[in-house]
């Protein structure tokens, strides 16, 4: 806390004091330079962040990351630390896509080895990894198998030969939250998720083949196994319909019990219950189960990608998992000796070298942090810092952040033009919907370089490497 207070007049920190609104329990703090602050101020995200500051049991600040923009309940890029002992847990503070997250895999292939076959490769990847349930690639589960995925996540996939010890070591929480309670996941949620393991979903979900085009910290890049010119794969997706329904179910439940706990909030979507209450514990168990489903989903997709790369490039196409990190989660964490339920909505952990949850093989660098840009722009690999615990309860941003609404993006440029421009820049595109391509166009997002620089300069995470897209599969 001392560090954060010392930085309160820093040019990259914008504080909203508790006097701004009578119901705030803590101040709000946004990490942004002047231009990002101006962008953030244009939509409703600051009002949403102030709403977060009213949650019972919130401590320190309601934090906004540099990619923050308007969401529902929490802003996207919002972080809140709530005391586990007397604070609340809010399904809307996690979001509908529970454990939406990113994993990065790296190969020994060079871009030159891959480029001649990019169109063919992207076609095969899009065929093998469907966005929905209607085509091949998904893993259909019996009720018993679904229970094991919910309860054990990637550990169950390891038993099925779809993951190995190395994969689990470099997945947040080893891809398996032990507090998961499959019995707290409704039949409706199971019905939505049963046929969706191994699918990308839609919206901003994607799979990108990229190349490491710049190394910004040689030592830390070496720790992560990243070297200039190497081909990587970045996968962004979450818990699909199962997670969406878990959130829907528990927003409804929390909405109905808030009066019992005498909780009054400015936004009904923030509906919550004490973390320690039966309702809070039941949601936490269901959320952990949905998170396990999401990790298993990304692991299943990674298995399909590995199969495709092996068919195309043989043993040279082997893909090693660098790390898998969650974006939308509530995690029990200790900061400054206090047990907190840290809600990250469109934000990621950024734990430093000394943190016990940083994988042993990354103790020299810190936990890898991924900040994807947009189709057509760079993505970044960073390393978490020990000081981030005091600065932002160990959090950093999860992407570039939207600057334009989907509707506005489509008005700027139609999808076929976006596709043509990406292809002219040497990026192979596999996306069935021109409309969704337009919605996710590079100009719809903030400047990722600017966002990453704020994260680096504020000390939330340190730049390690830059990735440039070669091909993208849009969900």
């Amino acid at each position, binding site marked *: 806390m001392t560090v954060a207070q010392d930085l309160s007049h820093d040019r990259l920190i914008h504080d909203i004091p508790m006097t701004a609104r009578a119901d705030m329990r803590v101040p709000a703090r946004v990490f942004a330079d002047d231009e990002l602050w101006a962008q953030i101020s244009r*939509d409703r*995200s600051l009002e949403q962040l102030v709403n977060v500051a009213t949650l019972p049991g919130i401590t320190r600040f309601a934090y906004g990351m540099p990619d923050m*923009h*308007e*969401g*529902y*309940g929490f802003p*996207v890029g919002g972080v809140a630390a709530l005391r586990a002992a007397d604070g609340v847990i809010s399904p*809307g503070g996690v*979001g*509908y*896509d529970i454990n939406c997250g990113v994993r990065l895999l790296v190969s020994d292939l060079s871009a030159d080895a891959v480029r001649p076959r990019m169109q063919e490769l992207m076609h095969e990847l899009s065929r093998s990894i469907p*966005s*929905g*349930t*209607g085509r091949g690639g998904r893993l259909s589960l019996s009720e018993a198998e679904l229970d094991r995925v919910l309860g054990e996540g990637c550990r169950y996939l390891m038993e099925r030969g779809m993951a190995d010890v190395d994969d689990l070591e470099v997945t947040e929480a080893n891809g398996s939250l032990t507090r998961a309670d499959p019995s707290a996941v409704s039949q*409706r949620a199971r*019905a*939505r998720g049963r046929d969706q393991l191994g699918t990308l*979903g*839609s*919206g901003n979900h994607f799979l990108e083949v990229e190349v490491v085009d710049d190394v910004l910290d040689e030592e830390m890049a070496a720790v992560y196994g990243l070297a200039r010119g190497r081909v990587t794969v970045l996968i962004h997706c979450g818990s*699909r*319909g199962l997670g*969406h*329904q878990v*959130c*829907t179910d528990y*927003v*409804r439940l929390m*909405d*109905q019990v808030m009066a019992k706990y005498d909780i009054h909030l400015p*936004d*009904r*979507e923030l*509906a919550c219950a004490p973390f320690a209450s039966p309702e809070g514990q039941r949601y936490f168990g269901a959320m952990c189960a949905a998170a396990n489903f999401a990790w298993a989903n990304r692991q299943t997709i990674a298995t399909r990608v590995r199969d495709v790369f092996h068919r195309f490039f043989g043993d040279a196409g082997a893909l090693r998992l660098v790390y898998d990190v969650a974006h939308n989660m509530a995690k029990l964490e200790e900061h400054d000796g206090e047990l907190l339920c840290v809600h990250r909505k469109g934000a990621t952990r950024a734990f430093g070298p000394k943190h016990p949850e940083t994988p042993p093989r990354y103790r020299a660098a810190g936990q890898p942090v991924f900040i994807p840009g947009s189709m057509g722009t760079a993505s970044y690999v960073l390393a978490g810092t020990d000081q981030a615990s005091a600065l932002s309860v160990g959090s950093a941003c999860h992407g570039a952040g*939207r*600057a*334009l*609404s*989907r*509707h*506005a993006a489509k008005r700027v440029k139609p999808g076929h033009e976006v596709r043509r421009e990406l292809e002219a820049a040497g990026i192979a595109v596999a996306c069935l*919907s021109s*409309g969704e391509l337009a919605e996710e166009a590079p100009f719809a997002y903030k400047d990722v370089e600017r966002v990453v620089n704020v994260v680096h300069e504020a000390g939330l995470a340190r730049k390690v490497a830059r990735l440039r897209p070669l091909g993208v599969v849009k969900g």
Partner: protein
Amino acid sequence: MGVSSELLSHTAEVRLRVRAPSLGELAAEAGRALGQIQLGTTPPVASSPWRDLEIRAPDRDALLVEWLNELIFLAETERWVGVDFEVLACDDMTLSMRGRGMVVDEPPSRVKAATFHGLKIGPTPAGLEADVVFDV
């Protein structure tokens, strides 16, 4: 006054404004608009038979959210997208509707959920108006 719907600005999600003379017609129009968002185009003529849908909720804001989330659930689990609705009965806590639509090849997963965020069903000179934010 007739019914109408329009998309309003939202940086990341979809914000829908719906107007109608009554709560039931407001829900019906919101359901039609949701079908259009899910299909990504103006819906063709409904091809499925009519089906009955019943919703209960503690108040009318929750009723609208529950109704829309039921349609999202049906789209994802049955691949049924409703595009045409008739109100059979409606009060602040119950909605009885019949609907017809179409069965699609791919379950439309574009819309994850209808949210309570900023939701308020309010009066207008000619009926009711509501803004609903969908997570997409």
